[in-house]
């Protein structure tokens, strides 16, 4: 068992000085991991595997937190996602963004996790596929938004995450979740209603007057 905060030395190599160096001069360019790092990690080199983890884990954990009902679930999702990423490194073709590839794996893993847990998607009546465009103050910080999102019912949250944050279309969401497009749209509509009410409830002074401007417009 490793001490808290300490990486597992089983996946690292000594630099010969007697002191283990988990990430000495990581060959990372900008935000992305180089092809060399990915290739070495695909070969099972512990140092490079850890390097990928260190680089991607904050981002992927953020994704998992958005989808998971609890933080423990997010950790499980993250662990499962990295296992899939590391197991499939050799399949990455270096044609697109490695980060995007890892994101997709994480989102799919999160959805799979939610699917196994329980039915999250509440069927709502059809015909409400048109969502309003809601406006809120720009001043809300990411932490506040995350806190708000974490309180949202899971069914709404999943569709909202996929549509509003990941940028998937309703057709894609419907395919991913195994629901109809109409359901996806209605879930999104409900999610925004829920957010609107929550914001007014939590921040009555800030959002009472200027929060909502509905536009009769199809959001898809």
């Amino acid at each position, binding site marked *: *068992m*490793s*001490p*808290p*905060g*300490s*990486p*597992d*030395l*089983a*996946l*690292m*190599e*000594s630099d*010969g*000085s*007697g*002191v*283990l160096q988990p990430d000495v001069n990581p060959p990372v360019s900008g935000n992305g991991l180089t092809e060399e790092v990915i290739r070495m990690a695909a070969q*099972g080199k512990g140092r490079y595997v*850890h390097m990928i*983890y260190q680089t991607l*884990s*904050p*981002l992927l*954990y*953020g*994704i998992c*937190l*958005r989808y998971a009902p609890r933080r423990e679930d997010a*950790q499980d999702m*993250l*662990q499962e996602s*990295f*296992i899939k990423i*590391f*197991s499939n490194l050799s399949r990455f073709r270096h044609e697109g963004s490695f980060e995007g590839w890892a994101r997709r794996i994480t989102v799919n893993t999160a959805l799979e996790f939610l699917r196994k847990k329980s039915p999250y998607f509440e069927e709502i009546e059809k015909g409400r596929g048109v969502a309003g*465009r*809601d*406006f*809120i*103050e*720009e*001043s*809300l*910080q*990411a932490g506040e*938004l*995350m806190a708000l*999102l974490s309180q949202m019912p899971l069914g709404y949250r999943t569709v*909202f995450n996929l*549509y*509003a*944050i*990941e*940028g998937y279309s309703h057709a894609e969401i419907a395919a991913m979740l195994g629901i109809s497009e109409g359901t996806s749209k209605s879930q999104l509509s409900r999610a*925004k209603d829920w957010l*609107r009410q929550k914001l007014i409830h939590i921040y009555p002074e800030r959002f009472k007057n*200027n929060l909502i*401007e509905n536009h009769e417009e199809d959001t898809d």
Partner: protein
Amino acid sequence: MKKIPIEELFRKELQNYREAPPSEVWTGISQRLAARRRRKAAFLWGGTLSGCILLTAALFWIRKTPSQPNPILSNLQNLEQPAKAQSEVSAPLFNSTNAHSAAPTQGNQNQRPEASFTLRVPNPAPERLASPTRANQKVYGSHPVTEPTPIPNKITEESINPIESHASTDANVLQEDPNRAVAETLKNEEKSGLKKASENSEEHMAEAPELKPATTSDSKCKKWPLYVGITYEAGSMWRLMPQSATPNAWMPESQVEHLASAKGGTSTSFSDVIQAIQLMAGYRFGEALSVQMAIGHTRIGHFESGSLLERALPSDGRLGLMTETGAWKVGPEAVSDSMVRMKKLSQQFSFITLSPGVLYQHHLKNWVVGFNAQAHAHILAGNRAEATFAQSVHTYKHEGLRPVAFSLSAGASVGYRLQKLVLSVGFQGGYWLTPLSRSGFAGSRYIHLGVRPALMYHF
């Protein structure tokens, strides 16, 4: 105040939202990856083992000789067929139910009653009469013998003079037989062969105990040249690389402290030992050469004691024991020398070992001299280390070990054969091709020498 759509705000703020996960996540991932590697290695070697077993089985079936026709029946058929062609006479010459009761007909594969047959004698053919050995060709087990006639288990007067002893029952038959001359000739040959066998039987049995009458198990010996065995090996190991050349990497199980590395030093008293127990199965090619596969458990241990505690145990700077400045510390606290000096250190690494190999055996009467060579794949099954300090004992687990290590060994043995059992004892020496860990204390290469008693059962 500027207003923006909800979706855009969430997308802007949360699309790249980052939060550091707790360290337990990485611990879990690394453990699962390590477990996957071990499983992969286990599958690899399990597959290799299965392949070897299948190969051995295939070799066995390929080499298995097709069942030979019963030579007694063949002789009888040889006698019968010309007889049918040349004469319609088929009256039995004699019924030797008792006469041949001692003859080993257990191997008879047709449904003819055991130890009971009727010899039908054809019309006299000149060449048959001129060939006295033809009728005498009897086969014990799978060994055809012409002269002398094979040795029965019991030589009795009845078996020597089958016709006379049954004169009362067979007399009429003999009298009625138109080919009495042939019968007489055969009878004389039979008698002379059996008598000669009787005279020499004891001598033969003494000189060549394996020339006993064919039995079911002997038949199997021909069909199943296999053996199984169990071996135990205990010995010492020696490092080929000085300890100071390899850094140590230790991780505690207790999460209380972390011993990162030990700079070299002059260990005063240490010993490395090896113990191995294996179950083996082998296939003999001829009398001497065999191929075998063994599976077992190997444990190597390292024990140090005494003034070894002169060794420094520098830590990673967070928790642990530090001697950077000559002062012992556990974390930020300085402690007395006696608290941190180790009294004893023991490590144990256990492996599941798969060992294909070859064995050459030379037989000197009941003594067997054997030479073997084996390759070993050691799949890591566990490791444990204990450091005993003045006031406490800490249990550690060595991290960074390879999931599979390889070694070669060879040895010589002397054994004694007790029927199908061979008890032997020998020396076995080996060389570890791969170090146990990528780096660290157990990272050096070893040679080992051990004593290996063995017990083998030959089918």
